[in-house]
């Protein structure tokens, strides 16, 4: 991946800054960040605590509006969208996987996977069949009616993955996906992410502080003090903008 053109970008940040606080006490969580992620890339973002990687993630996933700069997702300028437009956009284009799973505790696995479908207006008749299929694909076909408290950590994360795929988004964002898992489950989860990238050609973005997780990505981005320090691919040149 050498030169990236604007057309290949699925995610693009232009001079994005995020400043918290006012007056004398200001924290620059992101400092003039330029970033472009191509369609179908598998990217990991790593950095120490306080580096801004979480803020970067929030910006990429449209959960947070930057103080300045522009963000484009699939060519659409999200920084210009209203809250309602953003919500709908986010729901359809981005799939989330969290460190702490964030499943709805009172819903079954099936209902959890259906959740984004009713939120985003999937026709009623399609919901359950689609959810079943997704759960089967992650190997939880026999666990559909279990609640989160009846599932192991690895199983919960797989439900979360199925949920993330519910609206068939092109971008999957995972925030420390193996952080709360034992090594065996962690391996399983990373395998699923790899499949999503290689077989289904989805764009995968993983934020982590775990080296063993970060190195599995095709392209690695390091962030420190709100700035991207390194951005390198597997033995290829540093990707540049424009």
């Amino acid at each position, binding site marked *: 991946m050498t030169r990236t053109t604007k057309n290949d970008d699925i995610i693009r940040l232009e001079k994005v800054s995020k400043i918290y606080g006012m007056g004398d006490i200001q924290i620059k969580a992101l400092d003039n960040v330029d970033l472009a992620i191509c369609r179908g890339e598998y990217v990991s973002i790593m950095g120490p605590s306080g580096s801004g990687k979480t803020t970067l993630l*929030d910006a990429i996933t449209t959960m947070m509006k930057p103080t300045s700069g522009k963000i484009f997702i699939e060519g659409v300028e999200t920084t210009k969208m209203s809250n*309602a437009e953003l*919500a709908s956009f986010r729901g*359809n284009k981005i799939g989330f996987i969290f460190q702490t799973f*964030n499943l709805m505790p009172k819903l079954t696995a099936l209902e959890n996977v259906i959740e984004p479908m009713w939120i985003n207006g999937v026709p009623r008749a399609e919901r359950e069949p689609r959810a079943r299929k997704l759960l089967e694909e992650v190997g939880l076909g026999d666990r559909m009616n279990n609640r989160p408290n009846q599932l192991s950590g690895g199983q919960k994360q797989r439900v979360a993955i199925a949920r993330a795929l519910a609206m068939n988004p092109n971008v999957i964002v995972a925030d420390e996906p193996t952080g709360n898992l034992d090594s065996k489950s962690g391996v399983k989860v990373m395998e699923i992410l790899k499949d999503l990238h290689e077989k289904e050609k989805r764009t995968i973005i993983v934020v982590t502080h775990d080296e063993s997780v970060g190195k599995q990505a095709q392209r690695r981005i390091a962030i420190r003090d709100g700035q991207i320090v390194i951005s390198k691919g597997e033995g290829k040149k540093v990707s540049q903008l424009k």
Partner: protein
Amino acid sequence: MKFDIDVLENSIKNLRRAGMRTVLTLIGVIIGIAAIVSLLSVGQGLNVAVETQFQSLGSNTIFVIPGASAGGFSRVTLTDNDITQLESIRGVSDVVPIYGAAAILEYDGQKINVQVSSADAKKSSIFDSTGFFDVQEGRTFSKNDSQAVLIGDKIASDYFDKQIIPRKIVTINGEKFTVIGILKPQAQSFGGGPNTGTSVFMSLDAFNRIAQNVAPSIIFVKTTSGDDVSYAVDEIKSYLDKKYGEKSVMVSSADDLLDQVNAILGVITLVIVGIGGISLVVGGIGIMNSMITAVLERTREIGLMKALGASNQRVLILFVLEAGFIGMIGGIIGVILGYGLSLLISYLGASSGFALNSVINFEITIGALLFALVIGIVSGLLPAIRAANLDPVVALRYE
């Protein structure tokens, strides 16, 4: 506004999943609504009962009650001359005095105090449609009943060890009378008052024999038509005021009395409904409290929903609907319970002599349901706005 069946469905699902908390919150609303509905229903029933009583007399009836406005005994004794004077007023068709006196009724060796009433047989036809002299056993007066009495149902069955049935002989102020009939409970309440069951009716001749100081306790004046009523009332008032002094005799048309009674009933109903309303407001606060707690507990869930694509508006509607449903469901159950309660009250009332029918009417029902729904929505609005404005990034990481 993104209002669709999914938001509706999920708000109900959420309420079900909250289980106990929903139930407890509901109870607050149910009690408030049930209280208001039952009291309104009984209150309306009282209104209707009173109106029916007055209507049976006819709207062109005027009540002349000596001493009633002085609020005590009738110190005023109306004379036959007064009756004649009243009869001469333009528009008056009948003047029917009811004479009353206290007496002692003796039966089977026991004595009780009773109120003996009598009216001129020739004039008492105005009472035919009123049911005042309806009997539940035996018969009412006919031509040669100079030694006959009608007695109240309580005298017949409650006050003596031995039951009094028709054909039995009782002694009133020393004179023997044959009981020809037992009065129905409702028959004895003039104008909606409680039935004491202790009335005794006899012919005027008999009355004059057993009672001293025969004076009318109440005079019914009928006019030819409704238009004549107000003129007649004014004339009667000015005549009696001049003769006996102001306010010594109460003169009211049936409508006036009805208005007065309704006004009092209205105030009582208002006060009691006000109390019920306060309890409902408390129920609403309960809803608000429950929803605020729900939003707090579900902060991460709300953050998640937003991450999954829910707009702020959608979240707002979801929570408002939840609160609204609590109001509505509580309202429905409360209305049913309230009516059940009012039926119970009227049943209890009937068995102690009050002819009380609770009213089940459209306005009360719809009003109560709407009120409950509004309380639900209003109470849920603040917490819903809070939920809608939660920063998803912060919410998702909430512990």
